[in-house]
């Protein structure tokens, strides 16, 4: 009988509590979607998530540690030799690049368009990969103390990987260019044609949209960032055009791009500072045509 009473009291208040919480969730979602004002709340809650993520990583890191400790002497020597050779090769290439850059700067100063100084970079390690199969997000081990900011471009040795969307304590969340919510303003290196490349959710395929049938593009064209929209630095490779279809009856061609960056394979990534944090509101850069 006592329990029944408790039950009835509980019921009325249950409805009220549920309704309040539902309204509160909706308010939170609107605030988060429209104004991005909740980064601090997210940051606070991520303090609870971080130790969990860390614990999950322990077995993997342990295996890696063992693997590293028992790598044979010979393998290390071999690696060392190979890396030295690589280093030499890259040095030689860099020398050539230096001359080219100087020449480029000289020519630009002749034309009267000063080129920006080169960008600052920092190496970050991928800490975990988001497990939702419908998203392409990764977490890296740098936070605001290291200078990470929302909208910062992330690259690897081969091209642009994505941008930071949340800065937490001890880690930051990066949206890869292959996420279906991501768009990046680009231009085709060969012709200078501008456009926007969208992610598809598949990490081996991007999509160049809103390009008319008669545009001057062909398979194998290199696509690089245009820097329009101010999010991404200009002239970093994004991908290579893989296939072009021009379906009759459609206004635009459907163009598949293979990303240059190894979106699935890199362990280390580079954070790039190319301009101060500007607006942090829109994820999609308005760089379209």
């Amino acid at each position: 009988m006592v329990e029944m009473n408790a039950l009835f009291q509980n019921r009325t208040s249950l409805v009220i509590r549920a309704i309040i919480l539902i309204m509160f969730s909706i308010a939170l979602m609107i605030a988060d979607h429209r104004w991005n004002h909740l980064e601090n709340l997210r940051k606070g809650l991520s303090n609870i998530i971080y130790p969990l993520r860390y614990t999950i990583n322990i077995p993997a890191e342990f295996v890696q540690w063992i693997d590293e400790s028992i790598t044979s002497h010979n393998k290390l020597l071999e690696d060392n030799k190979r890396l030295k050779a690589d280093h030499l090769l890259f040095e030689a290439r860099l020398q050539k690049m230096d001359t080219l850059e100087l020449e480029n700067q000289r020519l630009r100063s002749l034309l009267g368009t000063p080129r920006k100084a080169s960008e600052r970079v920092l190496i970050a390690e991928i800490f975990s990969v988001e497990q939702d199969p419908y998203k392409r997000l990764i977490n890296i081990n740098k936070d605001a103390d290291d200078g990470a900011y929302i909208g910062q471009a992330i690259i690897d040795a081969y091209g642009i990987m994505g941008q930071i969307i949340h800065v937490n304590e001890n880690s930051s969340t990066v949206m890869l260019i292959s996420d279906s919510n991501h768009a990046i303003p680009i231009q085709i290196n060969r012709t200078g044609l501008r456009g926007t490349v969208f992610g598809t959710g598949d990490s081996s395929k991007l999509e160049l949209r809103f390009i008319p049938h008669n545009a001057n593009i062909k398979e194998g064209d290199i696509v690089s960032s245009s820097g329009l929209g101010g999010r991404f630095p200009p002239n970093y490779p994004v991908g290579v055009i893989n296939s072009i279809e021009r379906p009759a009856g459609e206004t635009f061609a459907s163009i598949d791009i293979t990303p240059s960056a190894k979106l699935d394979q890199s362990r280390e990534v580079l954070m790039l500072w190319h301009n101060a944090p500007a607006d942090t509101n829109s994820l999609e850069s308005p760089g379209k045509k």
Partner: protein
Amino acid sequence: MIQKPYIPITISLLFALMLSMLPLPGWINHIRPDWVTLVLIYWAMALPLTAGVMTAFVFGLLLDVSQSTLLGQHALALVIIIYLVQRLYLRIRVYTLIQQAIFVGVLLAIKQLVVLWVSGITNNAPDITLYFLPTLTGVFIWPWLFILLRDIRRRFCHSQHR
């Protein structure tokens, strides 16, 4: 009489959260059951006075942060289904395991639908061909999870009910 049921509830929910973040090879992600929701449903049914909509809300927010979804997206979905569980827990308890599993399937589907619906409004709706697979795996896993959590409950929280 009640031996702080908060502790096993929190630990099992945090463990479920970890399972939902555990890195697994690609295709398994498509069938990964919704651990946090399943565990929440169990506790809301078994100890409705301890684990309720508030617990659902807090763990919904944690899910949102861990999956980088809109803050409140999972919270909303979880509050709705846990509310349903709290209204119907007396009935669910007397179901057989199979009937329970089917009911849990309905709850999981509602949760998935609400999350999908919010994603759709904010225009990031995922491809839905495989979207409801976790609901199915959730149904298959429910009987085992139920037995496991029941043993945990009997061991650590001398029950309020039954």
